[in-house]
């Protein structure tokens, strides 16, 4: 199933008709946003457009197709495969990952139990973020991550949302796992808490992560890192979007076990990360040996700067 089909099948019949008639390059399509009684919006090639009833991309809100409550309800039925119960844990976190690794963000009325979010009802806002696999996008940063021909540096990829950090991480994993003329492929353990990296569907990764990669799908990062080290003895551990206290404790465990770590985090710079209460400590203690900072100034996934453990720039983009 190609990306177009993966995306189109989750929409209600009406929306499917409108979106399928658009002439889109799905590689450039980044987001589709549905809001109850709001206009149908796409982020395409880094720009925002409204979609009209006649399936055209326009800049005028007045011409936009308005999404109804029923269309959102029908779309949610398809997203969850008629089985909302199967996504209870994901819904608590506010998103569902579908076949192909695309992330569906949802918002509505939260139901609380003992001050914790139990579920979300009356889902009225949906944000579909398309997952992109760009093979070779990590080639530029790999020489800065590699430490000889068999080892790598502990690396933290820092990026604001929608700047391609998961895409970069995916390709880094693939290349380190497969190896190439200057680097011997290493066993990589991936903890894919949100099924975004490998996009496993019924246990089978939909994205290529390399021949020496083991994936723990839908597993909490902190538990997963320890589990993988004990069970699969990886040389490299890769995780997406670290940040919680448990994550940081697990990172320390990984590093003390002699494994190398590649992680991503939301942020805009090293200084930004230093201000984070728990992760900031790891930066100050110089645990990470490489920091890759991304932006989307020229294109999504643009590598802005790469720093070493002391914060000295080892690479700087011209933009």
């Amino acid at each position, binding site marked *: 199933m190609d990306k177009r089909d993966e995306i189109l099948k989750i929409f209600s019949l009406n929306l499917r008709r409108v979106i399928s008639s658009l002439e889109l390059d799905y590689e450039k399509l980044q987001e589709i946003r549905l809001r109850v009684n709001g206009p149908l919006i796409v982020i395409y090639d880094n720009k925002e457009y409204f979609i009209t009833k006649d399936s055209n991309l326009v800049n005028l809100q007045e011409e936009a197709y308005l999404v109804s409550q029923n269309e959102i309800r029908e779309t949610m039925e398809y997203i969850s*495969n*008629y*089985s909302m*119960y*199967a996504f209870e844990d994901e819904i608590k976190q506010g998103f569902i990952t579908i076949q192909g690794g695309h992330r569906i963000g949802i918002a509505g009325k939260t139901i609380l139990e003992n001050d914790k979010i139990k579920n979300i009802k009356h889902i009225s806002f949906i944000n579909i973020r398309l997952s992109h696999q760009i093979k070779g996008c990590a080639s530029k940063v790999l020489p800065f991550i590699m430490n000889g021909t068999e080892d790598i540096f502990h690396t933290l990829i820092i990026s604001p949302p929608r700047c391609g950090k998961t895409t970069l991480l995916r390709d880094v994993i693939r290349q380190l796992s497969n190896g190439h003329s200057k680097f011997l492929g290493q066993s990589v353990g991936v903890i894919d808490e949100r099924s975004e990296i490998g996009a496993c569907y019924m246990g089978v990764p939909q994205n290529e992560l390399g021949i020496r990669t083991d994936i723990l799908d839908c597993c909490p990062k902190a538990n997963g890192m320890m589990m993988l080290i004990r069970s699969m003895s990886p040389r490299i551990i890769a995780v997406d979007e670290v940040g919680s206290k448990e994550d940081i404790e697990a990172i320390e465990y990984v590093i003390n076990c002699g494994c190398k770590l590649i992680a991503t985090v939301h942020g805009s710079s090293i200084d930004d990360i230093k201000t984070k209460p728990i992760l900031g400590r790891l930066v100050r203690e110089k645990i990470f040996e490489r920091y890759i900072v991304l932006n989307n100034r020229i294109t999504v996934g643009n590598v802005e700067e790469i720093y070493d453990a002391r914060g000295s720039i080892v690479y700087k983009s011209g933009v």
Partner: protein
Amino acid sequence: MLITKIIGVILTVCSSGAIGIYFSDRIKDRMNELKELKKIILSLRGDIRYAMTPLPEALKVIASRHEGKFETFLEHLSKELNELGGITFQEIWKKCVEEDLNETALTKKDKVYLGQLGENLGYLDKEMQINTIDLYISQLETEIEELTGSMKEKTHLYNCLGIMLGIFIAIIII
């Protein structure tokens, strides 16, 4: 003339007896199908309880493991659900119950219960699914129990009635 009459009597008694056997077999078939249905629903409950498997996937896996009379029903259900064609789960379930179970010995009441199961599946959380399935299983168990109690008498009755009816018609003909 006598031979013709004898042949006629034999044919009448045999065909009438066969009708009796057919009806008694229907009762046995219904019993087996209710038990098979229970097995299927238990598998579905297991898939939901332990693996939180979405319904289309769970039904497809169960269909691949069962070769009985419900295979078509399960496969059709899973196929329709995967098509995401603009109809609700309840409508798809009802449609499949109506279309795919005509060859079975299930009664109208059995189909109504099965149809009601589909009305609440997929809705709300895991607990709701388990409760809905448990309710249906208890309904199935009641039916199986009632049928077990009366099956021996009923099959015997149908067999006897068939033959008796044949003899009765034969006497009238003679």
